[in-house]
């Protein structure tokens, strides 16, 4: 008996050791070693300028510059289902920033998701996307960051819950979900498409929001751009492949470019977190690059829209189908700007271009199956981002309607004027806004 027990324990130990070895191997797969003596690096002005542009493409400041904080000094808290993660200081400060980092160290972070001393970085930093960035572009970014004024600001300690605050957990995550990649040119596609693919999949990291994440916070290649609820923020990043959501296969290229450059297009506007993406990032991109991204997005294979996230309350709280109540609320609060027929409002003196007040009839933001965004917009109002192409946006006021009333009016507009989307219930409203 004792021998059998010993053999059993021994076998378990062997299995455990084998698993640990497998995890270690898989979490380090594809990583080339960093040279012990870094090659000398002298940045050219062109490189720094290129790096500044690429930092806009990647919207690095979106996480690495806190509101009102010094440029790229970090300290912004990003809430995740695993706890709060804080962005690091990218300025060339010797003790709290990237002061002692070589271009190879920076490349290791971008390509392999590892810090200078080799410890794994949290994939809140979207290195699964940035891994595709070329060494040349990584060096340009490095040159730009090293040219910034050094700011002494230590990163706040992450607020991650055990076991997510351990390197072992990250090793398992990497083993399961990450291996370094390089962007491979698709010879069957045009150069413009390839440029767009490189930007959208790499620095653009669009998939970091526009795709679902599994329970361990990873996105999947198979469901690329399929839409996803942004964790903790409560906004829904719509599918870029479904025509019922934000798929642009049917749009003229110029309209896709307009949405990214100006924040508004004829049939859509950037609100919620996307407004910040336009404001800080895409409005600064060259027309050539925006066109390339548009060409790539238009060519994405169309898919069906994903089913909306099922809430447990759906089973016992009926959707608000009190359409006369919704219609009355609409007449009182919404029709003045959006039109009694949801036809929107056009700026005086113009005959085409985006409407000052968007039409709600045929508006995909209103009719997509996941109603989170339209509920939030009705509750909070807002402005489209101010851009060179739309410098003085029209504002929408917030509403102090009760959740029941918001459910009523949202259900109404989702079913009126030819719109054919399902009504919402007040629990969905509460879940989306409070």
């Amino acid at each position, binding site marked *: 008996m004792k021998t059998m027990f010993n053999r059993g324990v021994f076998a378990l130990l062997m299995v455990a050791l084998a698993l640990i070895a497998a995890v270690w191997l898989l979490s380090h797969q594809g990583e080339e070693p960093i040279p012990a003596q870094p090659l000398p690096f002298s940045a050219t002005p062109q490189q720094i300028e290129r790096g500044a542009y690429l930092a806009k493409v990647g919207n690095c400041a979106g996480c690495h510059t806190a509101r009102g904080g010094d440029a790229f000094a970090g300290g912004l808290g990003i809430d995740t289902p695993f706890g709060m993660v804080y962005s690091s200081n990218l300025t060339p400060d010797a003790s709290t920033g990237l002061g002692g980092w070589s271009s190879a160290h920076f490349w290791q972070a971008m390509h392999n998701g590892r810090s200078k001393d080799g410890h794994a970085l949290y994939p809140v930093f979207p290195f699964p996307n940035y891994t595709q960035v070329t060494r040349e572009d990584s060096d340009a970014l490095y040159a730009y960051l090293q040219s910034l004024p050094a700011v002494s600001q230590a990163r706040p300690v992450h607020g991650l819950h055990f076991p997510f605050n351990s390197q072992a957990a990250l090793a398992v995550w990497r083993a399961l979900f990450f291996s370094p990649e390089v962007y491979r040119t698709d010879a069957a596609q045009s150069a413009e498409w390839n440029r767009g693919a490189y930007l959208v999949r790499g620095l653009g990291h669009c998939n970091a929001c526009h795709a679902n994440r599994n329970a361990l916070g990873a996105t999947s290649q198979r469901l690329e751009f399929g839409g996803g609820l942004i964790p903790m923020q409560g906004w829904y990043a719509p599918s870029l492949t479904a025509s019922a959501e934000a798929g642009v296969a049917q749009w003229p290229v110029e309209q896709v470019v307009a949405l990214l450059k100006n924040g508004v297009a004829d049939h859509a506007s950037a609100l919620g977190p996307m407004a910040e993406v336009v404001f800080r990032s895409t409005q600064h991109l060259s027309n050539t690059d925006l066109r390339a991204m548009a060409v790539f997005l238009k060519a994405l294979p169309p898919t069906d829209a994903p089913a909306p996230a099922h809430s447990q309350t759906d089973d016992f709280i009926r959707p608000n189908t009190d359409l006369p109540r919704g219609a009355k609320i609409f007449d009182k609060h919404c029709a003045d700007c959006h039109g009694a027929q949801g036809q929107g409002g056009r700026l005086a003196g113009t005959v085409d271009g985006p409407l000052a007040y968007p039409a709600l009839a045929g508006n995909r933001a209103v009719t997509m199956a996941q109603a989170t965004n339209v509920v939030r917009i009705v509750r909070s109002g807002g402005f489209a981002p101010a851009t060179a192409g739309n410098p003085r946006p*029209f504002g929408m006021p917030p509403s102090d309607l009760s959740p029941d009333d918001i459910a009523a009016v949202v259900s109404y507009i989702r079913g009126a004027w030819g719109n054919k989307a399902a009504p919402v219930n007040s629990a969905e409203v509460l879940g989306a806004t409070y």
Partner: protein
Amino acid sequence: MPCLAFTLRRIVTFLGVLIALNLLSPEARAVSTGSGTPGQAQLQLQLNTTPGTVPNTIAQRVAACFACHGQEGKATSGGYLPRIAGKPAGYLYNQLLNFREDRRHNGAMVSFVGNLSDAYLWEIARYFAALDLPYPAPSLVSLSTAQRARGEALALHGDTARQLPACNQCHGGQLMGMQPATPGLLGLPRDYLLSQLGAWRTQSRRAMAPDCMADIAGRLSPEDLGAVTAWLSQQPVPLGAKPAALRAVADAAVPSALHCGSVAQ
């Protein structure tokens, strides 16, 4: 024969249901004709697809702001939302920037101004600064004689022993503000004044450094806070009063010139 009757009955019922649904639907209330010939009116939706015309004015662009700030400020369950009409443009601009850059904390304000450019925020500030809207009657606050005297003294004369300048040194002789960037103190509820001074004491509200109000609020005792906010909230707004023109702050009793970051902003 029965077959035909059955089919006809089905068709009539179907048509009847369609007509009934159209009559009951919201679209049936539409009066103006968009596209479509009169003959299609019975079973087809008549939609007015022509967008309305929106005035190309700054007033129209920021009409949304009145929803919360009202004409003269608005008390809500989430706190008092202050009056913005008639405040100095520089002050309003600074506050919009402060919300955008997280020196003042209000999630709703960030969602509005977070992605607006400096130039547009300046235009918005100038628009509201130029508005001339009536002020509400002052609130009724019960004050003891001593409190009233203390509040008036702090507001109009300061307290040199505690290095407290008089409010009217910066906020205008009539306490209605001073150009370009110092707001008036009248026409505001006591709770709002208390909450802002409290926010400066706890640093949850900040101005550009050097933050003068943080220093001053920190030196006010709780009794002072009660007295000066009560006195200010009781003062009627002088008819036609506007923010005073800029003048240099000069008072020998105040230690070192009051260089305030918000004015230099």
